Every structure is written in structure tokens, then in C-alpha cells.
């Protein structure tokens, strides 16, 4: 028992990290649910990487990283919109190209300064153990905003996930609520980069919500499962990193993805036992 609790009793920074991780888990499972349901994983990934040059630029200019992240995310969304609307290329191609360009730009900016390499690792993989009280406050506010917007927009978001045309016909313009949804993804990525980093936040967006999708028959339940899985991953990941001296952010994401695959395996096994013949028909 002692090894499960003790690290958190003696180390305030671990408690802050745990709270930060749980806040990230809540925001990520709300936003991640819609990313999974709407098949926006690629856009989420692109946003997560698109913020890198923004953060790097902000650090170079001495501006808070979060401001830079916001600028990077906005540029990414604008770029995606522009390319998909103006050209006949599929949005996959456009997003993929922007994604690489932003990543390269970020590294180029970072390479301007030799003292930057430590920061780069921090940006990409997060510094959850260095979470400050102010950082927690920002996290908490952002999580509240994400939750509030998700509650207000629950109906249009549900319609969008079900059938975008139905949303339009029902008087909830799909384009408007899609933009709101992208804004939530961006906000979550921006405030989570400090905790789990821009590369790893994607794992927190996808893994808990996907596991929730396998376990739940309702969207609210999917979010609840996602939050629980995210929180458990944070706790277990911090514990692992403490005892085994591993990178904290990466440990958390590793536990989260591990939990996803465990749930995936169990659910598959269970349905194989319950409906041995139904599997062929489910291959679509």
C-alpha cells in the first residue's frame, strides 16, 4: 500500500501533477469523445503539432508559451480551412502538409538557439512534474470552459456526430458548431501542452475516449469512462515514473494507450464468446 500512496504524501509537486493530469483527463475525454465520434483524429493530431512553432516562437520572444500555442492553433485551423475550401485536394492531404510544415517550422525556430534543446523536449513531452499553482488555475479554468461549452452545445454536437446534414436541417448550422468543436480541441491542446506535451496530448485525447467508446452505449457514459481511464492513467503513470524513474508525461500516455488496448482485447474476447458467429458480419 505504501508504494501506492506515499509518493503523493511527501511530494507536493506530485500532487500538483496528479491534479493537473486529472484536469487534462476531464478536458481531453470531453473533447476526445467528439474527436473519436466525428473522425477528427487527424485534425486533432495536426492541431497538437501545429502549436509547436507557436510555442517555440513565443519562448524566443519571451511571451508566455500558451499565447504562442494559441496563435499556432489558430494558424493551423485557418490554414486547414483555406486549403480544403480553395483546392480540390482532400483535406487529408492539406492537413498532412500543414502538419509537417508546422512541425518543421517549430524545429527550425528551436534550432535558432542552442540553449533551446531542453525546452524542445519540454514542449514535445510536457513537464507535468513542474506544474505550478498558476498552471493549475489555468488548467482548471480551461477545463471548466470546455465542460460548459460542451454542455451548451451538447445537442448540436450530438447531431453533428450523428449526421452533419441533419444538424443543418435542424437549424444548428454544421459549419458553425464544427468551428466551435475545433476551438475546443485547440483550447484543450493549448492548455495541455505543459502537462503532457504537444506530441503526447494526442494520446490523452484519443486513448481514454476510444476506450470509453468501446465500453459505453451513451455519449455521456463515454465521457465518464474516458475521464476515469484518463485519471487512472495519470495516477498510475506518475507512480511508475516515480518508482522507476521514467519520464512522467510519457508514462501517463503509455498507461492510457495500454488501457485502451486492454479494453479493446477484453471487449473483443467478450463479444467473441457471446456471439461467435456475429464477428464476420461486424467486419464492415
Amino acid at each position, binding site marked *: 500500500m505504501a508504494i501506492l500512496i506515499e509518493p503523493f504524501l511527501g511530494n507536493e509537486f506530485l500532487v500538483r501533477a496528479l491534479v493537473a493530469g486529472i484536469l487534462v483527463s476531464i478536458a481531453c475525454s470531453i473533447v476526445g469523445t467528439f474527436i473519436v465520434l466525428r473522425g477528427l483524429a487527424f485534425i486533432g493530431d495536426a492541431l497538437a503539432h501545429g502549436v509547436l512553432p507557436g510555442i517555440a516562437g513565443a519562448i524566443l520572444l519571451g511571451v508566455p508559451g500558451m499565447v504562442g500555442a494559441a496563435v499556432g492553433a489558430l494558424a493551423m485551423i485557418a490554414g486547414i480551412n483555406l486549403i480544403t475550401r480553395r483546392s480540390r485536394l482532400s483535406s487529408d492531404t492539406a492537413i498532412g502538409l500543414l502538419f509537417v510544415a508546422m512541425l518543421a517550422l517549430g524545429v527550425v525556430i528551436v534550432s535558432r538557439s542552442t540553449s533551446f534543446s531542453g525546452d524542445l523536449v519540454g514542449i514535445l513531452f510536457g513537464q507535468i512534474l513542474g506544474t505550478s499553482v498558476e498552471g493549475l488555475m489555468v488548467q482548471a479554468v480551461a477545463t471548466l470552459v470546455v465542460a460548459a461549452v460542451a454542455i451548451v452545445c451538447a*445537442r448540436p454536437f450530438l447531431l453533428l456526430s450523428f449526421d452533419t446534414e441533419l444538424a443543418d*436541417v*435542424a437549424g*444548428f448550422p454544421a459549419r458553425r458548431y464544427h468551428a466551435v468543436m475545433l476551438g475546443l480541441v485547440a483550447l484543450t491542446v493549448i492548455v495541455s501542452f505543459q502537462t503532457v506535451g504537444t506530441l503526447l496530448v494526442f494520446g490523452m485525447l484519443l486513448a481514454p475516449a476510444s476506450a470509453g467508446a468501446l465500453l459505453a452505449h451513451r455519449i455521456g457514459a*463515454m465521457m465518464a469512462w474516458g475521464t476515469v481511464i484518463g485519471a487512472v492513467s495519470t495516477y498510475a503513470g506518475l507512480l511508475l515514473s516515480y518508482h522507476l524513474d521514467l519520464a512522467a508525461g510519457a508514462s501517463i500516455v503509455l498507461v492510457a494507450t495500454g488501457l485502451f488496448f486492454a479494453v479493446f482485447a477484453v471487449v473483443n474476447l467478450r463479444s467473441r464468446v457471446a456471439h461467435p458467429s456475429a464477428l464476420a458480419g461486424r467486419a464492415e
Partner: protein
Amino acid sequence: MTAPSPTAAAALPGAGRPTSISARGLCVGYDGQEVVAGIDLVVPDRTSLALVGTNGSGKSTLLRTLVGLLAPVRGDLAVLGRPPGGAPTRIAYLGQFHASGFVLPLRAIDVVRMARFPNLGLLGRMTSADHDLVAAAMATMGVADVATAALRSLSGGQQQRVYLAQVLARRADLIVLDEPTAGLDAGGRERYLEAFTAELLRGATLVTATHDIAEAAEYDQVLLLARRVVALGPGRDVLTADRLLDTFGIVVRDRHAEHAGRFVVAERAHGQPQVVERVPPPD
């Protein structure tokens, strides 16, 4: 356009009554590319219109224009007295393709409840009247017993019944359906016909795209489409062998069958190679 000029509005059933749809010189299409031009159409309130044509004939394009998903390429169009899309609380639409019900963690009843969203807005609470509408619609379509089952666990035919229940629960003044019987079994078809006949009696206006010529013959007006307006008018005037030939490309004529008022339409462009239809004999 070489298309025969469509029937004048004055000859329409219910002419002079308020209209749910009125189109003049309407051209529909995608991205400014026209699919069907020269549509002159009046659908009075509480009447029905069937769109008949092959896949790609413009049925869906016209329906999507009526509900505001596509902007008209040109021409005038008023739906429920407004520009299309202007009255979301009064319209119900069932398209042909449904997003992946397979991934979505939704129960059948959650899908039918969506029907009430336009009237409730963002935060309005479901009233007991809303819940009653949802329950009644599911009972009508015979899916009350699977209300709490996961949508993804239902068969294609059951899912289609759930979507039709959603349309019923809208309580719309204008109902627009795109091939609503696709995937329905005989029982589902029967419930569908009964339910939407009842919707007409309730006072709704019904616009349906269909491959089923026998069903179309029951509608107040039939619009035959083949990337142009082939004909528009009451079913018995419009659903003739010549016009169906124009619409579908192949009509197999059999003298004996024709004496009995039947002929066979083989739909070349449709996925099924031989759709055989019977049309009731003209009086």
C-alpha cells in the same frame, strides 16, 4: 430544354390553398453545376409529391435543395413561405446516407429524441409532450421494444425504422424523404405506408423520392426526373409507359400485361438490374 412543359399550377390538386413549396424556373445542382433545370412546381399544403427517377436523375439534389442543404443554382424557390432552410422547426428530412451508427454509442431512443432538438433549441428541456411524441413514433414504427438497445446492435432494417420514427417525432409541416423504404422489410414497409398516410391526414405535406412506381401512383403529384423534368402531374397522367421509358431508359412492353394495365420497367441505371413494377390501370 426540350422537356415537355410541366403541368400548369392551376390544374394541381388543392390549387389556391397555401403552398408548402413553390418553385419557378428552379435549377438545382452542386457547386453551380446544374443537374436539373427548369423546375416549375407548386406543392399545396397537405398534399403529396413523389419524385421518380433513376439514381443520378436529380431526385436527391432537388430534395437537398428543398431542405436548404444545397443552394439553388438559379430560379425562385420558397419552402414554407421562406427561403429554403428558413423554417427548421417545421421541416423533417430523411436523407439516403446515414453517418456511422456503428461507431456512435447511441441507443435507438436517443436517435428519435433528436427529432425534438429543433423545437427545444440548445438548452430547452424535454417536456412530457416531447417524450410522448418520441414514444408514440417508436411504437408506430414498431421499434418501441428496442428503444434502449444500442443503435449499432440493430439490423439495417430496424435502423431505418428508427430513422423513420425520428421523422414522425418531428411533427413537421413538411416531410422530405429520400428513398425511405430502402432496407425495410415487408412489415416495415407496411408500417411506413400507414404512418405517413396518417401524417398526411394530420396535415403534413409529403415529398418523397422513390423507385417504387406503384407507391408513387398513390401520390397527389408525381415528378418524373431524368436530369430534366420528364413530366409533372397526377400519377395516372404521368406514369405512362412512354414517360417511364423517358425516365428509366428501358420499359419492357408486354401486350397482355398492358391490356391488364401493367407494364414492366427495367431500371438500367439502378443497382438492381430488374426492378419490376406494376401501375394501377387508368380508370
